[in-house]
């Protein structure tokens, strides 16, 4: 029998250091007596090691995983195995690179007549262009994310895919709060792009969600994780378990649209 979606997420949280001491103890007690959960632990160790080697974990996750599971004798064996498996993958051939002159020669040879026609058109565009091709104002791209806590951990459900274009002015992301977590009066959000983390303030919030706005100028294509912290009246903060994952990509790479997608 397979483990539940929630258990898969919990095991990942356990291995990536996202559980409190009490939660860790509870999951370990279950591991001692539940076969499915223990099997899930072993599978997740393999997968996370693979993700670690492929640099697909957030920076804090990498650090924890390396200093804990990968520091154990079993973890080290798993790490070496994953690297060895990687060595056996066929290499992706690099595209042949021509210098600029070779590329220009090839282009002119093929498109001689088109070049002549386009030169005339270019003259028209130079004169009329500024009036015709005014750049549209930057757009705000909005979408909603749910926490990895309690979600299915299969890869295709993990990262919400969002387009990043030159016209994107900002991302307006609504983070749905997981059930059962303590609501706060204020929140801090941490954006992790796998090389650095950036602290952001909540733009707005209600009983079930927090909205964060991220200027697109600071973003590029790739994988991102958002983490949510509740700010307490005494000045301390508490991490809300789970993460909000999204991937930014050019519209050409984006295939099927997501049902939660909205634009303004």
């Amino acid at each position: 029998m397979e483990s539940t979606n929630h258990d898969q997420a919990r095991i990942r949280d356990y291995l990536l250091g996202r559980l409190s001491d009490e939660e860790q103890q509870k999951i370990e007690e279950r591991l001692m007596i539940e076969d499915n959960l223990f099997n899930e632990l072993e599978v997740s160790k393999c997968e996370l090691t693979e993700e670690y080697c492929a640099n697909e974990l957030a920076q804090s996750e990498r650090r924890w995983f390396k200093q804990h599971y990968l520091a154990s004798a079993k973890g080290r064996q798993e790490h070496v195995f994953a690297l060895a498996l990687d060595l056996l993958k066929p290499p992706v051939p690099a595209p042949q690179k021509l210098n600029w002159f070779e590329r220009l020669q090839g282009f002119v040879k093929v498109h001689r007549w088109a070049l002549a026609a386009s030169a005339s058109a270019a003259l028209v565009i130079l004169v009329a262009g500024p009036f015709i091709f005014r750049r549209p104002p930057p757009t705000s791209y909005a979408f909603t994310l749910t926490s990895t806590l309690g979600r299915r951990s299969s890869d295709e459900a993990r990262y919400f895919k969002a387009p990043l274009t030159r016209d994107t002015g900002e991302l307006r992301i609504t983070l749905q709060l997981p059930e059962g977590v303590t609501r706060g009066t204020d929140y801090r959000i941490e954006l992790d792009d796998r090389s650095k983390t950036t602290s952001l303030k909540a733009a707005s919030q209600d009983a079930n969600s927090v909205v964060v706005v991220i200027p697109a100028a600071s973003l590029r294509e790739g994988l991102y994780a958002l983490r949510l912290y509740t700010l307490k009246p005494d000045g301390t903060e508490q991490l809300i378990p789970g993460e909000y994952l999204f991937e930014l990509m050019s519209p050409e790479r984006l295939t099927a649209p997501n049902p939660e997608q909205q634009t303004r």
Partner: protein
Amino acid sequence: MNTEGPTQEEFEKLLRWLDPDRDKAGEKYQKIRNRLIGVFSSRGCCDTDDLADKSINVVTSKIDWLLGNYVGEPALYFYGVAKKIYLESIKPKPPPNVDPPDPQPQEVEELATHLDECLEALPQPDRDLVLRYHEFEKQEKIQNRKSLAEKLKLSRNALRIKVCHIHSKLKKCIELRLRGSST
């Protein structure tokens, strides 16, 4: 806490405590030991087997008390003892927050040679599956695995479990080869 080796009599009592049937008791014993090793490795302990055996020895030394007083799942008692053993193991100094060294390239290459040979020894469907499962990167990898699962009429979860089982076979094969090459 007594961590000396148990007597044979104590060990036999432990097995009977786990199950009146000796074969089933042996299976439960092994299962508990593996679980303890799994928990210790998740916490980053180097000598997981040693810590698991120490935990078992402590429980075994208390077997007379357990037989008369303990009510509950035996595995949870083992876990309780294991937690204390873990805390004792880090008592002199807590583990430092430094990264352990990365595997050496020669170590990885040697393992890759054995892995290649072990892949050849796998039944072809398993070999093809594991090689195809690990093709591509990032988004293409995700799509590839989704297609593989659909082609094999497996859920995404069943596929990852199947591949993990094949990994286990490969690791056992590699371990045998490494032992063979070191003798």
